[in-house]
């Protein structure tokens, strides 16, 4: 004969099973609702859209600082710009990843001329994809295309990149700490095309290097700068009591080094 305790156990087990099944059905119900809610979000949120029903035309002639045409160079239009600061590699940024689009590209002919069909997605950058001139970027706002969907820059002058080393050499034996600032054409500053004119981005925060201290240790006097050339670097340094000195260097080649004695 079955004991009363055993009967109670079976009833408890049965009751627990029903409760579990009820929870399962509630979970299933909730999951289904959640899925139905998420489905339209998933369908809509994956849309990365460019402007509909438009094609623009980009054209320019690319020359170096001597006026010689630069041939066989890839020129592209993108919604993002790349920078090589931080770790010295091209990083695609200044826009979220899902808005990084290539809008168009072309190759310069022997006269340095290039033109290509371009898609549109707001403001964009013109890039010059060769090692020597890769740092040149032109920033263009959407308004510049106007209603004629034409961006015609008659001539784009590209500057090459130079690595400049400036070393502060302590010849006086002073132990005072110095502060230096540098004004130069940084590779991280681009060109701006505005009102049919191509100009340098004067507001670029990399134009003026933030002040650097030296002479606090024996090996903190060497500064490396990545600049466009030909260009001018102006170095301003100040000692502890406020005496200010200025040096100016004209950069004309890809690799240069200078010494400043104090």
């Amino acid at each position: 004969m079955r004991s009363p305790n055993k009967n109670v156990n079976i009833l408890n087990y049965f009751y627990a099973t029903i409760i579990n099944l009820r929870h399962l059905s509630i979970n299933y119900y909730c999951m289904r609702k959640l899925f139905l809610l998420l489905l339209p979000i998933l369908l809509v949120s994956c849309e990365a859209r460019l402007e509909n029903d438009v094609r623009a035309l980009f054209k320019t002639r690319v020359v170096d600082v001597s006026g010689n045409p630069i041939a066989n160079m890839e020129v592209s239009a993108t919604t993002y710009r790349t920078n090589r600061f931080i770790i010295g590699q091209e990083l695609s940024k200044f826009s979220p990843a899902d808005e990084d689009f290539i809008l168009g590209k072309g190759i310069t002919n022997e006269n340095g001329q290039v033109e290509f069909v371009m898609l549109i997605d707001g403001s964009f950058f013109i890039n010059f994809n060769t090692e020597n001139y890769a740092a040149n970027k032109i920033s263009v706002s959407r308004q510049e295309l106007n209603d004629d969907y034409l961006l015609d820059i008659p001539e784009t002058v590209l500057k090459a990149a130079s690595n400049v080393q400036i070393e502060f050499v302590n010849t006086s034996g002073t132990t005072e700490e110095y502060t230096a600032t540098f004004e130069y054409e940084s590779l991280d500053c681009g060109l701006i095309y505005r009102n049919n004119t191509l100009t340098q981005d004067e507001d670029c925060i990399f134009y003026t290097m933030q002040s650097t201290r030296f002479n606090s240790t024996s090996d903190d006097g060497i500064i490396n700068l990545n600049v466009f050339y030909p260009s001018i670097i102006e170095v301003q340094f100040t000692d502890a009591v406020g005496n200010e000195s200025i040096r100016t260097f004209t950069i004309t080649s890809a690799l240069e080094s200078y010494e400043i004695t104090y």
Partner: protein
Amino acid sequence: MRLPIRIIISILIFLFASLSFAQEYSSELAVPNSEQPKRLFLTDLYLQRGIPSGDNFAGNGLKGGVGYGIRMQFYVPKNFYLGAALTQDFMSVSSTAIVGEYARTTKFNAYFFAGYDYRLNEDWNITADLGYGYSQNKNRQSGSQGGGKFRDSGNVLRFTSSLEYNFSDGVSFFFSPSYELVSYNIKSAVALNDTFNNASYLNLAVGMRLNVRDYRTIPLGKSENQDLQELQSRDRADLSIKEKRRLYFLKKKEVTRQRKERKNNKSLL
């Protein structure tokens, strides 16, 4: 292979399989179509190869692929018909320098049409129609281009012809060349207007036509059974659904019997 194309192919294979059995049955009856009942309505299911053509962005920069379509039409007097159609074509970009920086496009058409159906002989029909409606190219970049999407929209004017072989009263196969001219609403630089204003496509389609015919128009001679006469003599509104179905199939049977008789007479001569 894309899912919609797989679905269409599956439907066509299924219909073809059904048709094969139907063929077996009708060959037994040896049906010539000299008195084919008039069509009331039909549906076309087809696969097509879209070929961009002409000196425009599609002709010079897109590469045609396989597409599919569905057409439905109903008949008005004197073998004229009216209808509506949907098509979808999958194409790839052969020159980004011409079309812009994207990798593939899906062309979608939705249009109305009007046309004429001409019966060549017992087995063959030809049709021709002219349609007008909406067209849209849904363009998509590759992953390396950024994965962006955008569309080019416009209006399509489409001339469609077809050569049709009747396997039975209900089903026929057709080959259909068509030509479409799309005027796009693409805003572009003046120098690009000629390239992007219009595009043309030649389409070659093969498909299956499912017919609904009017058996009421077929005159009945000596009835093979009393049922038929009795059902015909009664008011149609009084018939039950079962009786209506029976009447329909009896009429159909009578038609095929008459055709068989005619064919036998011909062979005797």
